[in-house]
């Protein structure tokens, strides 16, 4: 096996199988377990990132394990999968490091680390799979891991929310499986490489879309995501920024962006659904008072912008959407980790009980502000460029009502994030005793994410060149 293929296989196999060794590592000692989990996360990131050089050079790597009936497990590294894998693995690794302190005083830590790593591994499997059936297999594995993670605390309410998460996403996944079976009988194969450029029927596309929307928490399946906020902040950060909701977006890009030529009516339906989702969730973010729910609604709203870029059928918008995935992962991961520090030190999630925290938590506040600015799309942050590209691409051939919906959504993003920042960090202190700053690793993690968001804006040339190359090489049916 060549080195790239080895890297490809280990990027999937090491976290998936390594996750099951974490309980054994826990038998040795707690530090060994923690170190092992972080190492698995870092290793996965480096393995995925090491493939970047290969795919930029225009090559791909493929590894196949034969299964009967065309169900081969095909791991395929191309520009899109390596990009997605690197982003997810990077954010997951940061989250694992942050977890060391954050999670250290709760029960069920071994299960937590095992599930985070399993989650990361299934995500790697999902993005590298070039077979729709195996995408489904890994899709369900992420569902299982998210179920255990959302149910990290064991009160009746938490467990009920976890069950809601898995039931909604598995329902979507089963619908997607119906769509996959339709593709299987229409085309006789599930290999995405040989399906490249073929047409997909409206019904099959619709079934697959239900799966995607349920996983990426877009209307009408959005309610589970804010509810999943009962989990520890690291978990929600992981779900929002690194893995779970990004799976839906990735699957859309993979299936309808670079494989099938989706029907025209289908894409415009997706645009309207995404537009409605952006508006409704931004409205919800404006009125909610729970810090984590607000950020969760913000995710629902931002994911809709990514769908706008992916479904516009325009090269600029598509490249913008890919950048958006990157920027949103970094910024949203940072926001949730900040929320984790705030929540842990103030012992509340209600923003009305916070206020004036900037003086006692300056670093967290600064990181929060930087991440918020990136999500809002203020130049020179990375988020500005991605949002700009998505809008300018969509404007070229999008319909006016859709654009207006998203413009209003973007303005509302600004409003709710300013409100959130003001309520937490500025204003009068409301009944708290000036809580402490978080621990060094925690603060360092959030600051790293915030600065990376800023740096990506300054160095926007490299990611955008990558996204453009990707769009030109792989895009299907784009103008």
């Amino acid at each position, binding site marked *: 096996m060549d080195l790239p293929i080895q890297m490809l296989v280990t990027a999937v196999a090491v976290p998936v199988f390594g996750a099951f060794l974490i309980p054994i590592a826990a038998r040795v000692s707690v530090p060994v377990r923690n170190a092992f989990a972080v190492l698995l996360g870092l290793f996965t990131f480096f393995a995925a990132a090491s493939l970047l050089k290969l795919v930029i050079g225009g090559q791909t790597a493929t590894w196949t394990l034969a299964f*009967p009936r065309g169900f081969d497990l095909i791991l395929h590294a191309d520009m899109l999968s390596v990009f997605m894998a690197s982003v997810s693995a990077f954010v997951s690794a940061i989250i694992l490091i942050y977890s060391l302190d954050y999670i250290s005083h709760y029960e069920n830590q071994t299960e937590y680390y095992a599930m985070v790593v399993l989650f990361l591994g299934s995500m790697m499997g999902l993005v590298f799979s070039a077979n729709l059936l195996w995408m489904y297999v890994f899709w*369900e594995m992420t569902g299982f891991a998210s179920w255990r993670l959302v*149910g990290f605390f064991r*009160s*009746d309410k938490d467990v*009920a929310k976890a069950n809601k998460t898995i*039931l909604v996403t598995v329902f979507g996944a*089963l619908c997607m499986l119906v769509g996959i079976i339709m593709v299987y009988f229409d085309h006789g194969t599930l290999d995405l490489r040989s399906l490249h450029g073929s047409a997909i029927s409206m019904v099959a596309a619709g079934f697959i879309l239900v799966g995607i929307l349920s996983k990426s928490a877009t209307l009408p399946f959005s309610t589970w995501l804010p509810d999943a906020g009962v989990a520890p902040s690291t978990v929600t950060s992981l779900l929002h920024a690194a893995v779970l909701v990004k799976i839906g977006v990735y699957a859309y890009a993979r299936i309808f962006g670079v494989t099938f030529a989706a029907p025209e009516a289908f894409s415009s339906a997706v645009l309207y659904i995404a537009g409605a989702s952006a508006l409704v969730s931004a409205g919800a973010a404006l009125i909610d008072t729970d810090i984590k729910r607000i950020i969760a609604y913000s995710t629902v709203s931002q994911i809709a912008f990514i769908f706008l870029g992916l479904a516009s059928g325009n090269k600029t918008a598509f490249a913008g959407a890919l950048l958006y995935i990157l920027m949103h992962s970094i910024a949203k991961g940072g926001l949730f980790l900040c929320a984790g520090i705030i929540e842990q030190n103030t012992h509340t999630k209600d923003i009305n009980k916070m206020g004036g925290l900037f003086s006692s938590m300056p670093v967290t506040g600064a990181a929060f502000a930087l991440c918020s600015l990136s999500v809002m799309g203020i130049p020179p942050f990375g988020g500005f460029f991605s949002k700009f590209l998505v809008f300018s691409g969509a404007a070229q051939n999008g319909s006016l009502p859709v654009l207006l919906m998203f413009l209003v959504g973007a303005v509302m993003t600004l409003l709710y994030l300013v409100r959130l920042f003001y309520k937490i960090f500025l204003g009068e202190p409301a009944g708290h005793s000036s809580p402490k700053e978080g621990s060094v690793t925690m603060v360092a993690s959030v600051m790293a994410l915030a600065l990376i968001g800023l740096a990506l804006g300054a160095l926007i040339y490299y990611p955008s060149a990558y996204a453009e190359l990707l769009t030109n090489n792989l895009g299907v049916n784009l103008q």
Partner: protein
Amino acid sequence: MDKGLLAYLLIPLFTAVLIPFIARNRPRLADIFANVTLLAGLVNLLWLALRPSVIAGGFADIPGDALSLLLVAAVYLVGLCVTFFSAYFMEEGLPNRQAYYSLILTSIAAMTGVVTTGDFFTLYVFIEVLAVTSFALITTDDSAGGIEGAIKYFFLTFPASALIMVGIAIFMISLGSLSFDSLRVYMSSDMPDGPVVFASALIMLGFLIKSGVVPFHAWTPDAYQGSYAPVSAHLAGIVTKISGVYAVVKLATLLRFFDGRAQALSELVMFLGLLSIAVGAIAALRQTSFKRMLAFSSISQVGYIVLAAGLGTPLAIMGAVFHLINHATFKTTLFLNSASLEKAAGTTDMDKLGGMEHAMPWTSWTSVIALLSTAGVPPLSGFWSKLLIILALWESGLKTYAVLALLFSIVTLAYFMIMQRKVFFGRKSPAAERSSEVSAPLLAPAVLMCGVIVALGLLFPYFYQYVKVVAERIIL
């Protein structure tokens, strides 16, 4: 009768006769004899089926129709798990220890007979032997629930036997022979088929009752709930599958040779299969007893097998056989775990349990694996068998059936979620505070079965090859 496998019938029967004499003064010897017999048989079977040369040859060297061998192996595997579990589960002073092991071994011999026989009369005889042994086994611990379950079992399965008897009589009158081969020859010829279809319908009805398919499911929850704990694993895991479902699959494959003339019967079987999937899953949502929920789940899963059997295409038969095996593995795990729960916490009432994950981590996680496999979550074995069944339905143009069968997986998952919230995860209950994990030997069977579930899922290509050989041999 497949003579190559006759030893697997005779040896347990011989041990069953031997045990009361040998173990009269030393009851522990009964445990040892039963376990050693089954272990030896299983090792032998694995050697027959999983020798490297056999695997390399694509399982072409398997003797007989390959299905018998697979099912005998499943019978031995479940039987071994149950006897091993019982050896540590039974209280020392239980008076009928020797009788218990004799009955288990007799029922294993009878099941081996059922799956190796080549004609309906022998099939009938062994199924009756099986019914009588199960009937006695249910009452092992002399509790009121056990007696009630046994009586219900009696009243519902013996009329079924009568129906089968009448059907066999009509076969005898119109065909003059009862072997599967002559039936197959007759069915593919153009001779008048009225009486034969009628007889097949009667036999089919009898076996559907015995497999506990809706609307004949009333006896299963009571029998499983009331019976002695390891016995319920034996019954749910393998006995009802062999005495009912296996025969349904066998008969359904024969019906295919009618070439469309028994279409109505096949369609009815499929409809009852789908109905079972739906009714079993929805009823399971409402149960508060762990064992009853598992019993309804069993009804629902049997529905998948019956649905596929009714369809009868090669792919569907492969799915049915695969699901039959999977069902044996995950139901045995779950029922054995319910027995462990009963031993550790003193109850299987889900309202009184909760938060058992810390008290009993092994029991909890093996149950989770088994349940995920039941719900068809990949990459566990249950996913592949369900996928094969759904692909077969779709291939035959039955898209509505396929989509419904698929979407009922979500109901399966829903009752599993309710169960895990009430029993394993969720808030700690007083029962969880005072109970602790059962001993390692009681966990070993569940862990072994979970290993099989994971292995069958990950090694799907090999198992697929095997069931493909099965489908080719019994259909072509």
